[in-house]
């Protein structure tokens, strides 16, 4: 292990710091990027990065990589687990086709040059399970977003319009779950599912509570902003997977019009592809991507991520339990459901995206439309792993965004339905390499509120990826195969200054940190004490004193106090 590195002669792209493909050296000491003068040249290990692209390690801000959902997926799908990636030797055995084991998740991210990954939906009462799995994922830094939008405490405080209690509850819940931010999944709709229903608009009444999805979203955004959490509300919109849902998405985005935050968005809308359908049935379905992209582009406080489907196998797993049942009815496939105390629910259903299936092809096109039509400073590249498919195909999406020629080739093998139902064939936009680097590094880091991630400025974490690609020479419009290949396996992946991957092969195993946010100092924690006692004695099946996760149970916790 070297505590000093000198990465020499690489071509650096570092969007956050305005570095556009410049030949420069990067210096690393004690896990951080430092000034040249900080290291002693004869002690530092030199990495020759001549003619290679040097960027910050990738940041996956939305994936389902740990906890009861993915683990039920694995249990349900032994056919997924039969793909052998690595035989046990120096490293653990790693298996999985799209659903991967925890070691495989860490290894695959590292091989691809990714160094941070966020679990996007942590069931609060299952938080300890999520953390156990995160602690079994090697190589990357990680964190988890607990789910709030159907939790009875939230519904009660929103109904009572009690912002102080709502803030205290969020701070309490994030601390108890050792979570990172506020995830909201189909607000109100999952509670309706407990009665066999769902919500169909932002103004439906949630059964049992005098609230609407609109009120839940706006209250949570307000509370999150008052608490000044690192990350904004992270919203999985209502009506996911329903033709015509793009209108609800646009409406949801506009809810935050006028709310300001100097350092980041105030609302992140996730895997938007699944919420970007026009039309009123699966027959008339069409892309609603353009309207959403326009709305996002016109606002300065909203970001989105793509949720790009990748043709092939996938497993749908979301906290949106009613949607998962609908999907099960649609496909006839296996279905797991998890109604969780008074906190919400989840579902898991296998799926495969087939290029010749008109709807699947349209979904694929919509994801790309969103990526192309939305400002590069507002759209993050994701597959909503494993809902849209594997994260290991991010390089495919990167290449597609940069090359119309590649898209034209791909359009030829998909259902012609795409030609009339989406705008993709007509889109000429080709993102630059810098933009795509931003969408996978500096942007997700900013969206999450992690100032030390996603860039190579002095003081940043020494999470670095080096790819076999010379940005000064590559023609991104035409060399898409080369681009894809280069981003698939890094020449070097460096995490906290440790070389984990060399020439696409893992050379070392490493355990990253788990970030969690402590906002208790920002709220009156006493305000919710009686409610906690009452709800736990009446509606929970565990004692309040035994609920939650203690920091000392985690492998490498990193507390962020705000």
């Amino acid at each position, binding site marked *: 292990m070297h505590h000093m590195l000198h990465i020499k002669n690489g071509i650096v792209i570092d969007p956050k710091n305005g570095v556009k493909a410049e030949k420069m050296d990067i210096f690393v000491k004690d896990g951080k990027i430092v000034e040249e003068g900080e290291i002693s040249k004869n002690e530092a290990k030199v990495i020759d990065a001549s003619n290679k692209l040097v960027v910050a390690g990738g940041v996956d801000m939305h994936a389902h990589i*740990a906890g*009861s959902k*993915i*683990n*039920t997926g*694995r*249990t*349900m*799908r*032994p056919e997924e*687990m*039969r793909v*052998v990636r*690595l*035989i*046990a*030797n120096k490293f*653990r*055995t790693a*298996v*999985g086709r799209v659903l991967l*084991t*925890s*070691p495989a998740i860490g290894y695959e991210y590292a091989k691809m040059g990714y160094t941070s990954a966020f679990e996007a939906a942590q069931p609060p*009462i*299952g*938080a*300890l*399970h999520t953390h*156990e*799995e995160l602690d*079994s994922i090697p190589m990357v830094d990680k964190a988890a977003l607990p789910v709030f939008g159907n939790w009875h405490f939230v519904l009660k405080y929103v109904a009572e319009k009690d912002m102080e209690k709502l803030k205290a509850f969020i701070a309490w819940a994030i601390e108890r779950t050792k979570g990172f931010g506020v995830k909201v999944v189909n607000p109100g709709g999952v509670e309706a*599912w*407990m*009665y*066999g229903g769902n919500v169909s608009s932002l103004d439906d009444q949630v059964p*049992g509570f005098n609230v609407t999805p609109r009120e839940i979203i706006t209250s949570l955004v307000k509370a999150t902003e008052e608490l000044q959490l690192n990350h904004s509300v992270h919203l999985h919109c209502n009506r996911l997977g329903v033709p015509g849902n793009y209108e609800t998405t646009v409406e949801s985005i506009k809810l935050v019009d006028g709310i300001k935050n100097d350092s980041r968005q105030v609302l992140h809308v996730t895997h938007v592809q699944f919420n970007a359908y026009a039309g009123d049935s699966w027959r008339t379905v069409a892309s609603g991507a353009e309207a959403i992209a326009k709305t996002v582009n016109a606002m300065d406080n909203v970001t989105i991520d793509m949720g790009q489907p990748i043709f092939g196998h996938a497993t749908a797993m979301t906290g949106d339990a009613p949607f998962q049942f609908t999907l*099960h*009815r649609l496909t006839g496939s*296996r*279905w*797991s*459901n*998890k*109604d*969780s*105390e*008074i906190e919400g*629910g989840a579902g*898991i*259903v296998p799926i495969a995206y087939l290029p010749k299936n008109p709807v699947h092809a349209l979904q694929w096109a919509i994801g790309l439309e969103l990526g192309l039509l939305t400002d590069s400073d507002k759209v993050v590249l994701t597959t909503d792993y494993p809902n849209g498919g594997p994260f290991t195909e991010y390089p495919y999406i990167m290449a597609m965004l940069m090359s119309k020629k590649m898209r034209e080739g791909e359009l030829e093998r998909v259902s012609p339905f795409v030609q009339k139902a989406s705008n993709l064939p007509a889109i000429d936009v080709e993102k630059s390499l810098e933009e795509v680097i931003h969408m996978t590094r500096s942007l997700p880091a900013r969206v999450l509120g992690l100032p030390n991630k996603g860039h190579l400025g002095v003081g940043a974490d020494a999470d670095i990826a080096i790819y076999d690609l010379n940005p000064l020479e590559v023609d991104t419009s035409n060399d898409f195969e080369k681009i894809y290949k280069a981003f698939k396996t890094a020449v070097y992946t460096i995490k906290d200054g440790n070389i984990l991957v060399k020439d696409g092969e893992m050379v070392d195993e490493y355990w990253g940190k788990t970030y969690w946010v402590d906002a208790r100092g920002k709220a009156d924690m006493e305000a919710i004490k009686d409610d906690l006692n009452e709800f736990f004695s*009446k*509606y*929970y*099946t*565990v*004692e309040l004193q*035994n609920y939650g996760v*203690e920091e000392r*149970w985690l492998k490498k916790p990193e507390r962020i106090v705000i």
Partner: protein
Amino acid sequence: MAETVNVVCTFCGSVCDDGQFDTEKFKSKKLCKLGSSKFSEKERIKAPMVDGKEVSYEEAIEKAAEILVNAKKPLLYGWASTVNEAIRLGVILTEKVGGVYDQCASVCHAPGTLAVIEEGLPGGTLGAIKNRADVVVFWGANPMEAHPRHGMRYSISAKGLLIKDRKQRKVIVVDVRPTKTAKLADEFIQIKPGYDYPIISALRAIISGNADAVPDEVGGVSKEKLIELAETMKNAKYGAVLYGLGVTQSRGRDRNIENAVKLIQLLNRHTRWVIWPMRGHYNVVGAGEVPAWEVGYQYAIDFSRGYPRFSPAEFSAVEVLKRRDCDAALIISSDPVAHFPRAAVKHLKEIPVIQIDPFPNMTTLVANVVIPSAIAGIEAEGTAYRMDGIPLRVKKVVESKYWSDEQILERLLEKVEELKR
């Protein structure tokens, strides 16, 4: 100084977390007969032993490592009564020695896992059931004997959000004999042993409007009764089928549960229903979940090729032993000599056996290496999953001279790595 502390019970899958324990008198309050037995003083394995001779932990672990490394195919079995931290090390250990990992579910609720593979598991937590279920069906399950506080805390008389009174909930027991639970039920439906499958098929047909196809009697139950049950199910607001070993261990096994899951899928087109297994040991869920995230499968996992393969037909402990397909065994927190059919026990008597357990049991009598361990939930802490997958941290409330399972396995793993080098 006498001290009463909160404990999380490490006996059955209910994992009651409201126990009180007097650390001085070594006595519990609030827990059931099973829990009280757990939290009481019992005979312990006094010291590590090799071939009946007392040795140090180091010596016993060294011997155990030798046995595992020298075996062509060791079986590492048990795991349901220890914590996740130990289980994780056990999975890695099995991977390292190229053995077979199997856990107590394979003679308990594993057929339910096979059903999950076929159809999924539309379920809910015990809290969802307590708060919402107006109809609860115990199918081949007898919690009054196996999970004594389940009914009070979660299912039969538990009160919650929508169910404020026992009268608001209908409890139905389907079983082959009038169990203690049946006596508390509003309705008991006695079925012919081994006829769960066709009865469930008949219910599905009735619910989907094909009652005409169903004969006058199925599995000892009249068609009228089946129609009545189907109506009760359809008219429930939120129903729960909680199934037990009566379904998993009898004729049909996993196919019974698969059929029941299909019934639940169908019922969800009309109203809300969930289904869940009444898991036995306090952390049998963890014994499946941990290997699932580490290597992709819940049980019956063979590592002889250096990667995991799943096949209960070949790699479940009973099959492995019955076919003499292992040449050494590590048994942890379990007693297969008492709980396996004799044909399987026979092979355990013939191969080197390592045991890790707090208590002497029948497996101790055949073990070559015996390593006593601290009792999780009393002398050692760690994570356990309640039957519904809810994680709870079990506590260390008294000091002990014994090593925890986690410590023993950590050292054993180190030793194995040393020997393999």
